[in-house]
């Protein structure tokens, strides 16, 4: 076997509590992204279940902002393990994306999940720019720890507010790579789902969805469109009133994230 950096071996997960037997390798740990403030990001790599050496690397980010990639991406969506009801054991996800790629889940920015900062004020002034910058720093350092992924086909994916994180990180990588003839981060593309894209157009499209799916009345639909200026920094009182009426009196007790699914009690 090729020699691997020591830190990589220290990050190897022997077995997670309650985990079924699997044939793929897993690693997790921290990468410091800002020494002065003590900001460190936590990652979990689940390698592909077949020939990981030939498969691409996919970085998955969740949205929020402030939501965990290992809670949603890994444990609910594309990861190999699901958690049982009592949280006592894990079971396999038949449709895990690690059949096709090596999956890198990243808790980002610091303050999300296991990622942390030693400077508590950081939690109150984080935003898009720092997130993208530190995700890039994470990747560069992570690839030094996992050199087998240098030059490997690399993709980014995510959902919801990661509609910001994913293209913003892609742009950072694209700009960073311009300085190299053969960049180590071999970014090929990205994919986003139900992604926040443009405040103005997203908002009009969202209200339209509520109306076309009979979640709100004609009257409320017209009221929202006439009172809400979706380009404004702050919504007017009349706009808030119309939207709140829809949510409190017309939506009903539904799961807004999946309108035909029973709500979790």
């Amino acid at each position, binding site marked *: 076997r090729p020699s691997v950096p020591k830190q990589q071996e220290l*990050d190897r997960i022997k077995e*997670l509590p309650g985990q079924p037997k699997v044939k793929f390798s897993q690693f997790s740990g921290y990468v410091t992204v800002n020494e002065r403030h003590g900001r460190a990001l936590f990652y979990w790599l689940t390698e592909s279940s077949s020939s990981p050496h030939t498969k691409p690397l996919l970085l998955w980010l969740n949205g929020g*902002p402030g939501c965990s990639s290992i809670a949603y991406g890994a444990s609910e969506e594309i990861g190999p393990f699901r958690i049982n009801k009592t949280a006592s054991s894990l079971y396999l996800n038949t449709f895990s994306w690690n059949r096709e790629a090596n999956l890198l889940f990243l808790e980002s920015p610091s303050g999300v999940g296991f990622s942390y900062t030693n400077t508590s004020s950081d939690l109150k002034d984080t935003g898009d720019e720092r997130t993208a910058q530190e995700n890039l720093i994470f990747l560069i350092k992570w690839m030094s720890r996992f050199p087998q992924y240098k030059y490997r086909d690399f993709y980014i994916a995510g959902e919801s507010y990661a509609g910001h994180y994913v293209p913003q990180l892609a742009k950072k990588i694209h700009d960073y790579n311009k300085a190299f003839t053969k960049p180590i981060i071999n970014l090929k593309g990205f994919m986003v*789902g139900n992604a926040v894209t443009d405040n103005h157009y997203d908002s009009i499209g*969202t209200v339209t969805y509520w109306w076309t799916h009979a979640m709100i009345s004609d009257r409320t639909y017209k009221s929202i469109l006439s009172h809400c200026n979706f380009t404004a920094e702050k919504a007017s009182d009349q706009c808030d009133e119309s939207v709140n009426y829809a949510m409190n009196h017309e939506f009903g007790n539904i799961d807004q994230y999946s309108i035909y699914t029973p709500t979790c009690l």
Partner: protein
Amino acid sequence: CTESYAEKYYNRADVQRAFHANLTRIPYKWTACSDVLIKNWRDSDSSVLPIYKELITAGLRIWVFSGDTDSVVPVTATRFSLSHLNLPVKTRWYPWYSGKQVAGWTEEYKGLTFATVRGAGHEVPLFQPKRALVLFRSFLAGKKLPKS
């Protein structure tokens, strides 16, 4: 409800040990989402469409999908936003298939592929895992979603 299972599992001391996580003893419990971060988010681009334009020009593979039962960032929101990129259509709108059923609809623009996933909410791979995997395979391969 799966989120509540994660809250339990990731707060177990033995799980954190196995993950080499929380070595510095973070002074709060592990949570799926941080309220502090969301309340204090400092800067947020009003639109990422300019980034799309730049990266499309750079030749990156870009796919956008949408679960059609999500009302938080719904399919109409995404379509309305993407329409303002004014991209020429490369492959016209058609239903794509998985397991002999319509799995959604798709359209390929020059530089970007858009696809809906039928019956999926905000977290597409949670609600429609098989369809999501077909989508991911096609994305990686750079191939069109199956027409039958």
